Protein backbone atom coordinates (compact mmCIF):
# COMPACT_ATOMS: atom_id res chain seq x y z
CA UNK A 1 0.00 0.00 0.00
CA UNK A 2 2.81 2.41 0.80
CA UNK A 3 3.91 2.28 -2.82
CA UNK A 4 0.43 3.01 -4.03
CA UNK A 5 0.13 6.74 -4.74
CA UNK A 6 -3.56 6.49 -4.07
CA UNK A 7 -2.86 5.72 -0.46
CA UNK A 8 -0.84 8.88 0.11
CA UNK A 9 -3.82 11.21 0.16
CA UNK A 10 -6.58 10.14 2.50
CA UNK A 11 -9.07 12.04 0.37
CA UNK A 12 -8.31 10.16 -2.81
CA UNK A 13 -9.33 6.62 -2.13
CA UNK A 14 -10.97 6.65 -5.52
CA UNK A 15 -7.59 7.30 -7.09
CA UNK A 16 -9.05 10.28 -8.92
CA UNK A 17 -11.45 8.02 -10.74
CA UNK A 18 -14.72 7.97 -8.83
CA UNK A 19 -16.56 6.50 -11.79
CA UNK A 20 -14.71 3.23 -11.69
CA UNK A 21 -13.56 3.28 -8.11
CA UNK A 22 -16.78 3.63 -6.20
CA UNK A 23 -17.09 0.31 -4.51
CA UNK A 24 -18.38 -1.49 -7.60
CA UNK A 25 -18.99 -4.68 -5.70
CA UNK A 26 -21.41 -3.08 -3.28
CA UNK A 27 -19.44 -4.66 -0.49
CA UNK A 28 -19.81 -3.44 3.03
CA UNK A 29 -16.61 -1.86 4.21
CA UNK A 30 -14.86 -1.92 7.52
CA UNK A 31 -16.09 1.51 8.54
CA UNK A 32 -19.66 0.47 7.90
CA UNK A 33 -19.28 -2.38 10.33
CA UNK A 34 -17.52 -0.08 12.75
CA UNK A 35 -20.31 2.50 12.60
CA UNK A 36 -22.94 -0.17 12.80
CA UNK A 37 -21.38 -1.60 15.91
CA UNK A 38 -21.05 1.85 17.44
CA UNK A 39 -24.66 2.71 16.74
CA UNK A 40 -26.01 -0.55 18.00
CA UNK A 41 -24.41 -0.12 21.39
CA UNK A 42 -21.28 -2.19 20.88
CA UNK A 43 -18.97 -0.44 23.28
CA UNK A 44 -15.60 -1.48 21.96
CA UNK A 45 -15.56 -1.93 18.21
CA UNK A 46 -11.83 -1.31 18.21
CA UNK A 47 -11.43 -4.70 19.84
CA UNK A 48 -12.82 -6.24 16.71
CA UNK A 49 -11.81 -3.84 14.03
CA UNK A 50 -8.75 -1.96 15.12
CA UNK A 51 -9.14 1.54 13.75
CA UNK A 52 -10.11 0.36 10.27
CA UNK A 53 -7.34 2.40 8.69
CA UNK A 54 -4.75 0.65 6.62
CA UNK A 55 -6.35 -2.74 7.06
CA UNK A 56 -4.03 -5.06 5.22
CA UNK A 57 -4.54 -8.36 6.93
CA UNK A 58 -4.92 -11.42 4.82
CA UNK A 59 -8.35 -12.96 4.82
CA UNK A 60 -8.67 -15.11 7.88
CA UNK A 61 -5.77 -13.49 9.71
CA UNK A 62 -5.94 -11.72 13.04
CA UNK A 63 -5.71 -8.42 11.21
CA UNK A 64 -8.71 -9.11 9.05
CA UNK A 65 -11.74 -7.43 10.65
CA UNK A 66 -14.17 -9.20 8.39
CA UNK A 67 -12.96 -12.58 9.49
CA UNK A 68 -13.30 -11.54 13.10
CA UNK A 69 -16.76 -10.12 12.51
CA UNK A 70 -17.79 -13.20 10.65
CA UNK A 71 -16.72 -15.29 13.60
CA UNK A 72 -18.35 -12.98 16.13
CA UNK A 73 -21.63 -12.33 14.40
CA UNK A 74 -21.92 -15.06 11.86
CA UNK A 75 -21.56 -12.75 8.88
CA UNK A 76 -20.27 -14.31 5.73
CA UNK A 77 -16.74 -13.13 5.24
CA UNK A 78 -15.44 -11.44 2.13
CA UNK A 79 -18.60 -12.12 0.20
CA UNK A 80 -20.01 -8.94 1.71
CA UNK A 81 -17.22 -7.29 3.59
CA UNK A 82 -14.65 -4.87 2.27
CA UNK A 83 -11.80 -4.65 4.70
CA UNK A 84 -8.98 -3.66 2.40
CA UNK A 85 -7.41 -7.07 2.70
CA UNK A 86 -6.72 -7.36 -0.99
CA UNK A 87 -10.19 -8.27 -2.13
CA UNK A 88 -10.76 -4.55 -2.40
CA UNK A 89 -8.40 -1.61 -2.67
CA UNK A 90 -10.66 0.95 -1.10
CA UNK A 91 -9.75 2.49 2.19
CA UNK A 92 -12.94 4.18 3.27
CA UNK A 93 -13.16 7.36 5.32
CA UNK A 94 -15.57 7.26 8.20
CA UNK A 95 -18.59 9.57 7.98
CA UNK A 96 -20.14 10.87 11.16
CA UNK A 97 -23.57 9.51 12.02
CA UNK A 98 -26.08 11.26 14.21
CA UNK A 99 -25.68 10.04 17.77
CA UNK A 100 -28.57 7.99 19.02
CA UNK A 101 -29.82 7.13 15.56
CA UNK A 102 -30.68 3.63 14.48
CA UNK A 103 -28.96 2.45 11.34
CA UNK A 104 -28.92 -0.91 9.65
CA UNK A 105 -25.71 -2.31 8.25
CA UNK A 106 -26.92 -1.65 4.72
CA UNK A 107 -27.84 1.96 5.56
CA UNK A 108 -24.47 2.51 7.19
CA UNK A 109 -22.74 1.00 4.19
CA UNK A 110 -24.77 3.17 1.81
CA UNK A 111 -23.83 6.34 3.68
CA UNK A 112 -20.19 5.30 3.83
CA UNK A 113 -20.06 4.47 0.13
CA UNK A 114 -21.89 7.61 -0.96
CA UNK A 115 -19.84 9.79 1.36
CA UNK A 116 -16.54 8.43 0.10
CA UNK A 117 -17.65 8.64 -3.51
CA UNK A 118 -18.64 12.28 -2.97
CA UNK A 119 -15.16 12.96 -1.63
CA UNK A 120 -13.80 11.26 -4.71
CA UNK A 121 -15.78 13.53 -7.01
CA UNK A 122 -14.38 16.53 -5.17
CA UNK A 123 -10.95 15.47 -6.42
CA UNK A 124 -12.11 16.99 -9.70
CA UNK A 125 -11.29 20.74 -9.54
CA UNK A 126 -14.36 21.58 -11.61
CA UNK A 127 -16.56 19.86 -9.05
CA UNK A 128 -14.69 21.41 -6.14
CA UNK A 129 -15.10 24.85 -7.70
CA UNK A 130 -18.87 24.47 -7.56
CA UNK A 131 -18.60 24.71 -3.80
CA UNK A 132 -16.40 27.78 -3.77
CA UNK A 133 -18.12 30.39 -1.68
CA UNK A 134 -17.61 34.09 -2.00
CA UNK A 135 -14.28 35.09 -0.62
CA UNK A 136 -12.96 31.55 -0.52
CA UNK A 137 -9.66 31.11 -2.30
CA UNK A 138 -9.00 28.37 -4.80
CA UNK A 139 -8.11 25.70 -2.27
CA UNK A 140 -11.79 24.94 -2.05
CA UNK A 141 -11.32 21.21 -2.42
CA UNK A 142 -10.25 20.89 1.16
CA UNK A 143 -13.01 23.24 2.22
CA UNK A 144 -15.71 21.19 0.55
CA UNK A 145 -14.24 17.92 1.77
CA UNK A 146 -13.90 19.32 5.25
CA UNK A 147 -17.53 20.35 5.13
CA UNK A 148 -18.48 16.81 4.18
CA UNK A 149 -16.33 15.44 6.96
CA UNK A 150 -17.87 17.85 9.45
CA UNK A 151 -21.38 16.80 8.46
CA UNK A 152 -23.44 14.57 10.71
CA UNK A 153 -25.69 12.22 8.77
CA UNK A 154 -28.93 10.83 10.09
CA UNK A 155 -31.59 8.52 8.73
CA UNK A 156 -35.32 9.11 9.18
CA UNK A 157 -38.48 8.26 7.30
CA UNK A 158 -39.84 11.24 5.43
CA UNK A 159 -42.51 12.27 3.00
CA UNK A 160 -42.31 9.99 -0.04
CA UNK A 161 -40.36 11.81 -2.74
CA UNK A 162 -38.05 13.61 -0.33
CA UNK A 163 -34.51 12.26 -0.56
CA UNK A 164 -32.89 14.36 2.16
CA UNK A 165 -33.22 17.49 4.25
CA UNK A 166 -30.63 19.89 5.57
CA UNK A 167 -30.26 23.37 6.82
CA UNK A 168 -27.40 24.18 9.09
CA UNK A 169 -23.99 23.51 7.70
CA UNK A 170 -23.29 20.36 9.62
CA UNK A 171 -26.49 18.33 9.45
CA UNK A 172 -28.03 16.21 6.70
CA UNK A 173 -30.90 13.83 7.28
CA UNK A 174 -31.41 11.11 4.68
CA UNK A 175 -34.83 9.63 4.03
CA UNK A 176 -34.86 5.97 4.95
CA UNK A 177 -37.73 5.54 2.49
CA UNK A 178 -36.18 7.77 -0.17
CA UNK A 179 -34.02 7.39 -3.24
CA UNK A 180 -30.74 7.30 -1.31
CA UNK A 181 -31.48 3.88 0.17
CA UNK A 182 -34.13 2.42 -2.06
CA UNK A 183 -33.12 2.79 -5.67
CA UNK A 184 -33.31 -0.59 -7.35
CA UNK A 185 -30.62 -1.13 -9.99
CA UNK A 186 -31.65 -1.68 -13.59
CA UNK A 187 -30.65 -4.90 -15.30
CA UNK A 188 -27.35 -3.35 -16.40
CA UNK A 189 -26.53 -2.06 -12.93
CA UNK A 190 -27.48 1.54 -13.61
CA UNK A 191 -30.00 3.32 -11.40
CA UNK A 192 -32.83 5.53 -12.67
CA UNK A 193 -34.78 8.03 -10.60
CA UNK A 194 -37.23 10.80 -11.36
CA UNK A 195 -36.62 14.39 -10.33
CA UNK A 196 -37.17 17.91 -11.58
CA UNK A 197 -34.98 19.26 -14.36
CA UNK A 198 -34.00 22.90 -14.64
CA UNK A 199 -37.35 23.63 -16.31
CA UNK A 200 -39.18 22.19 -13.32
CA UNK A 201 -40.36 19.20 -15.35
CA UNK A 202 -40.13 15.69 -13.97
CA UNK A 203 -37.31 13.90 -15.74
CA UNK A 204 -35.66 10.53 -15.42
CA UNK A 205 -32.00 10.66 -14.44
CA UNK A 206 -29.86 7.57 -14.83
CA UNK A 207 -26.71 6.99 -12.79
CA UNK A 208 -23.97 4.44 -13.32
CA UNK A 209 -24.57 2.86 -9.92
CA UNK A 210 -26.40 3.32 -6.66
CA UNK A 211 -23.26 4.80 -5.15
CA UNK A 212 -23.04 7.44 -7.87
CA UNK A 213 -26.65 8.41 -7.14
CA UNK A 214 -25.87 8.57 -3.43
CA UNK A 215 -22.86 10.80 -4.07
CA UNK A 216 -25.05 13.07 -6.18
CA UNK A 217 -27.58 13.44 -3.37
CA UNK A 218 -24.87 14.24 -0.82
CA UNK A 219 -23.24 16.77 -3.15
CA UNK A 220 -26.59 18.45 -3.81
CA UNK A 221 -27.05 18.80 -0.08
CA UNK A 222 -23.47 19.98 0.30
CA UNK A 223 -24.32 22.85 -2.03
CA UNK A 224 -27.09 23.92 0.34
CA UNK A 225 -24.86 23.46 3.37
CA UNK A 226 -22.18 25.68 1.89
CA UNK A 227 -24.64 28.28 0.67
CA UNK A 228 -23.75 28.00 -3.01
CA UNK A 229 -27.10 26.50 -4.02
CA UNK A 230 -30.30 28.33 -3.06
CA UNK A 231 -33.04 26.45 -1.19
CA UNK A 232 -35.22 24.30 -3.45
CA UNK A 233 -38.20 26.64 -3.15
CA UNK A 234 -39.79 25.30 -6.32
CA UNK A 235 -39.15 22.50 -8.77
CA UNK A 236 -37.30 24.73 -11.21
CA UNK A 237 -34.80 25.83 -8.59
CA UNK A 238 -34.48 22.25 -7.36
CA UNK A 239 -33.77 21.17 -10.93
CA UNK A 240 -31.32 24.00 -11.58
CA UNK A 241 -29.43 23.06 -8.43
CA UNK A 242 -29.28 19.43 -9.49
CA UNK A 243 -28.17 20.45 -12.98
CA UNK A 244 -25.31 22.48 -11.53
CA UNK A 245 -24.08 19.51 -9.50
CA UNK A 246 -24.48 17.07 -12.37
CA UNK A 247 -22.75 19.36 -14.84
CA UNK A 248 -19.76 20.19 -12.69
CA UNK A 249 -19.19 16.92 -10.84
CA UNK A 250 -20.39 14.13 -13.11
CA UNK A 251 -19.82 12.99 -16.65
CA UNK A 252 -22.74 12.00 -18.84
CA UNK A 253 -21.93 9.10 -21.11
CA UNK A 254 -24.66 7.64 -23.28
CA UNK A 255 -27.27 9.23 -21.09
CA UNK A 256 -25.79 7.84 -17.88
CA UNK A 257 -24.22 10.02 -15.20
CA UNK A 258 -20.93 8.62 -13.99
Amino acid at each position, binding site marked *: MANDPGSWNRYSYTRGDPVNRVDPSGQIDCWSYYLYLTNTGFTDPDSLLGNCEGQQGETGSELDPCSQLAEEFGFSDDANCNDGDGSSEYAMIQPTLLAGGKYSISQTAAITNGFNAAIGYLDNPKCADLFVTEGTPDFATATAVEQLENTTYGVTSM*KPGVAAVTENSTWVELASNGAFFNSAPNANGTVSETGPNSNGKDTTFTFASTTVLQAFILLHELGHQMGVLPPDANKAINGANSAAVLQDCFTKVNGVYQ
Partner: protein
Amino acid sequence: MTARMRWVIRGLFILLAAGVVANATSEPALTALIHGLVATPAEGGPPSLLQVGIQFGARLTNKSGTTVPVPQETAAEGGAIRSAVIIAELQEPNGDWRRLFTSFWFGSPKDIYEPCAQLAPGGTTEIKGLDDKMVFPRSGLGSAGPDITIRFDLWLFCRQPDGTVPDTSVTTEPFSLKLPSEAN
Protein backbone atom coordinates in the same frame (compact mmCIF):
# COMPACT_ATOMS: atom_id res chain seq x y z
CA MET B 1 -11.05 33.76 -13.49
CA THR B 2 -11.11 34.22 -9.77
CA ALA B 3 -13.13 32.09 -7.41
CA ARG B 4 -15.26 35.12 -6.60
CA MET B 5 -16.08 35.72 -10.25
CA ARG B 6 -17.02 32.08 -10.75
CA TRP B 7 -19.26 32.21 -7.71
CA VAL B 8 -21.00 35.36 -8.92
CA ILE B 9 -21.47 33.97 -12.43
CA ARG B 10 -22.86 30.71 -11.06
CA GLY B 11 -25.27 32.56 -8.81
CA LEU B 12 -26.45 34.73 -11.68
CA PHE B 13 -26.94 31.65 -13.85
CA ILE B 14 -29.12 29.96 -11.23
CA LEU B 15 -31.14 33.10 -10.62
CA LEU B 16 -31.52 33.63 -14.36
CA ALA B 17 -32.59 30.03 -14.89
CA ALA B 18 -35.15 30.26 -12.13
CA GLY B 19 -36.41 33.58 -13.43
CA VAL B 20 -36.68 32.38 -17.02
CA VAL B 21 -38.60 29.34 -15.91
CA ALA B 22 -40.90 31.42 -13.75
CA ASN B 23 -41.68 33.71 -16.65
CA ALA B 24 -41.89 30.98 -19.25
CA THR B 25 -44.40 29.02 -17.24
CA SER B 26 -46.24 32.08 -15.92
CA GLU B 27 -45.65 30.98 -12.35
CA PRO B 28 -48.99 31.59 -10.67
CA ALA B 29 -49.23 33.95 -7.76
CA LEU B 30 -50.96 31.83 -5.15
CA THR B 31 -51.53 32.70 -1.55
CA ALA B 32 -52.05 30.01 1.04
CA LEU B 33 -53.58 30.19 4.50
CA ILE B 34 -52.86 27.18 6.66
CA HIS B 35 -55.68 26.14 8.97
CA GLY B 36 -56.75 23.25 11.16
CA LEU B 37 -53.19 22.28 11.83
CA VAL B 38 -52.65 19.34 14.16
CA ALA B 39 -49.10 18.45 15.19
CA THR B 40 -48.22 15.12 16.73
CA PRO B 41 -44.89 13.75 17.86
CA ALA B 42 -43.19 11.29 15.56
CA GLU B 43 -41.37 8.53 17.35
CA GLY B 44 -38.18 6.73 16.73
CA GLY B 45 -35.60 9.40 16.15
CA PRO B 46 -32.58 10.38 18.22
CA PRO B 47 -33.03 12.95 21.00
CA SER B 48 -31.24 15.66 19.06
CA LEU B 49 -33.88 15.64 16.33
CA LEU B 50 -37.38 17.02 16.52
CA GLN B 51 -39.74 15.04 14.32
CA VAL B 52 -43.30 16.24 14.05
CA GLY B 53 -46.13 14.81 12.01
CA ILE B 54 -48.59 17.46 10.84
CA GLN B 55 -52.03 17.45 9.32
CA PHE B 56 -53.53 20.61 7.95
CA GLY B 57 -55.70 22.28 5.38
CA ALA B 58 -54.79 25.10 3.01
CA ARG B 59 -56.97 27.85 1.61
CA LEU B 60 -55.51 28.76 -1.75
CA THR B 61 -56.32 31.95 -3.60
CA ASN B 62 -55.27 32.64 -7.15
CA LYS B 63 -53.98 36.19 -7.36
CA SER B 64 -52.81 35.83 -10.92
CA GLY B 65 -54.63 36.41 -14.16
CA THR B 66 -54.35 32.84 -15.33
CA THR B 67 -55.78 29.50 -14.27
CA VAL B 68 -53.62 27.60 -11.79
CA PRO B 69 -53.56 23.80 -11.52
CA VAL B 70 -54.02 22.68 -7.92
CA PRO B 71 -54.87 19.41 -6.14
CA GLN B 72 -58.47 18.39 -5.68
CA GLU B 73 -60.13 19.68 -2.52
CA THR B 74 -60.33 16.25 -0.96
CA ALA B 75 -57.97 13.34 -1.34
CA ALA B 76 -58.97 10.37 -3.41
CA GLU B 77 -58.43 6.84 -2.20
CA GLY B 78 -54.97 5.46 -2.67
CA GLY B 79 -52.66 7.80 -0.84
CA ALA B 80 -51.58 10.03 -3.69
CA ILE B 81 -49.12 12.78 -2.81
CA ARG B 82 -50.81 16.18 -2.95
CA SER B 83 -48.29 18.43 -1.24
CA ALA B 84 -44.86 18.55 0.34
CA VAL B 85 -43.40 20.99 2.81
CA ILE B 86 -40.09 21.73 1.15
CA ILE B 87 -38.92 24.61 3.33
CA ALA B 88 -39.95 25.60 6.84
CA GLU B 89 -38.97 28.95 8.27
CA LEU B 90 -39.21 30.14 11.85
CA GLN B 91 -39.97 33.74 12.71
CA GLU B 92 -37.51 35.20 15.15
CA PRO B 93 -38.60 37.61 17.92
CA ASN B 94 -37.25 40.51 15.84
CA GLY B 95 -39.43 39.49 12.90
CA ASP B 96 -36.69 37.96 10.79
CA TRP B 97 -37.20 34.57 9.19
CA ARG B 98 -34.77 31.73 9.72
CA ARG B 99 -34.89 28.47 7.80
CA LEU B 100 -35.34 25.31 9.81
CA PHE B 101 -34.82 22.96 6.89
CA THR B 102 -34.87 22.67 3.13
CA SER B 103 -35.83 19.38 1.51
CA PHE B 104 -34.39 17.82 -1.63
CA TRP B 105 -37.16 16.34 -3.75
CA PHE B 106 -35.65 13.57 -5.85
CA GLY B 107 -36.68 10.06 -6.69
CA SER B 108 -40.37 10.87 -6.72
CA PRO B 109 -42.65 7.87 -7.10
CA LYS B 110 -44.45 7.57 -10.40
CA ASP B 111 -48.18 7.59 -11.01
CA ILE B 112 -49.06 8.81 -7.58
CA TYR B 113 -50.73 12.07 -8.46
CA GLU B 114 -54.42 12.80 -8.69
CA PRO B 115 -55.88 14.78 -11.59
CA CYS B 116 -55.55 18.53 -11.15
CA ALA B 117 -58.39 20.91 -10.37
CA GLN B 118 -58.15 24.26 -12.12
CA LEU B 119 -58.30 27.34 -9.92
CA ALA B 120 -59.65 30.29 -11.88
CA PRO B 121 -58.18 33.80 -11.55
CA GLY B 122 -59.37 35.31 -8.30
CA GLY B 123 -60.76 31.97 -7.18
CA THR B 124 -60.32 30.31 -3.81
CA THR B 125 -60.27 26.65 -2.91
CA GLU B 126 -59.95 24.73 0.33
CA ILE B 127 -57.53 21.83 0.15
CA LYS B 128 -58.26 19.43 2.96
CA GLY B 129 -56.41 16.52 4.49
CA LEU B 130 -52.81 17.49 3.74
CA ASP B 131 -50.08 15.94 5.81
CA ASP B 132 -46.35 15.93 6.17
CA LYS B 133 -43.50 15.17 8.50
CA MET B 134 -41.05 17.79 9.63
CA VAL B 135 -37.55 16.82 10.71
CA PHE B 136 -34.99 19.23 12.05
CA PRO B 137 -32.36 19.49 14.79
CA ARG B 138 -33.64 20.73 18.12
CA SER B 139 -30.65 23.06 18.13
CA GLY B 140 -32.18 24.84 15.16
CA LEU B 141 -35.07 26.01 17.30
CA GLY B 142 -32.81 27.74 19.78
CA SER B 143 -34.94 28.98 22.65
CA ALA B 144 -38.09 29.11 20.54
CA GLY B 145 -41.13 27.07 21.41
CA PRO B 146 -43.34 25.41 22.16
CA ASP B 147 -45.47 28.06 20.42
CA ILE B 148 -43.73 29.23 17.30
CA THR B 149 -44.62 31.27 14.24
CA ILE B 150 -43.70 29.47 11.10
CA ARG B 151 -44.30 29.44 7.36
CA PHE B 152 -43.81 26.86 4.65
CA ASP B 153 -42.70 26.73 1.08
CA LEU B 154 -45.28 24.24 -0.05
CA TRP B 155 -45.16 22.28 -3.29
CA LEU B 156 -48.49 21.18 -4.68
CA PHE B 157 -48.81 18.05 -6.77
CA CYS B 158 -51.40 16.94 -9.29
CA ARG B 159 -51.41 15.53 -12.78
CA GLN B 160 -52.58 17.51 -15.80
CA PRO B 161 -54.61 15.83 -18.55
CA ASP B 162 -51.46 15.62 -20.70
CA GLY B 163 -49.74 13.62 -17.95
CA THR B 164 -47.41 16.33 -16.76
CA VAL B 165 -47.05 17.38 -13.14
CA PRO B 166 -47.00 21.19 -13.00
CA ASP B 167 -44.50 23.15 -10.94
CA THR B 168 -46.90 24.75 -8.48
CA SER B 169 -45.49 26.12 -5.27
CA VAL B 170 -46.52 28.70 -2.73
CA THR B 171 -45.09 30.36 0.34
CA THR B 172 -47.77 30.16 2.99
CA GLU B 173 -48.85 33.00 5.17
CA PRO B 174 -47.28 32.81 8.63
CA PHE B 175 -49.15 30.69 11.13
CA SER B 176 -48.79 29.47 14.70
CA LEU B 177 -47.62 25.99 15.53
CA LYS B 178 -47.54 24.43 18.95
CA LEU B 179 -44.73 21.94 19.03
CA PRO B 180 -45.71 18.73 20.80
CA SER B 181 -43.64 18.64 23.95
CA GLU B 182 -43.23 14.89 23.95
CA ALA B 183 -41.98 14.85 20.38
CA ASN B 184 -38.84 12.85 20.04
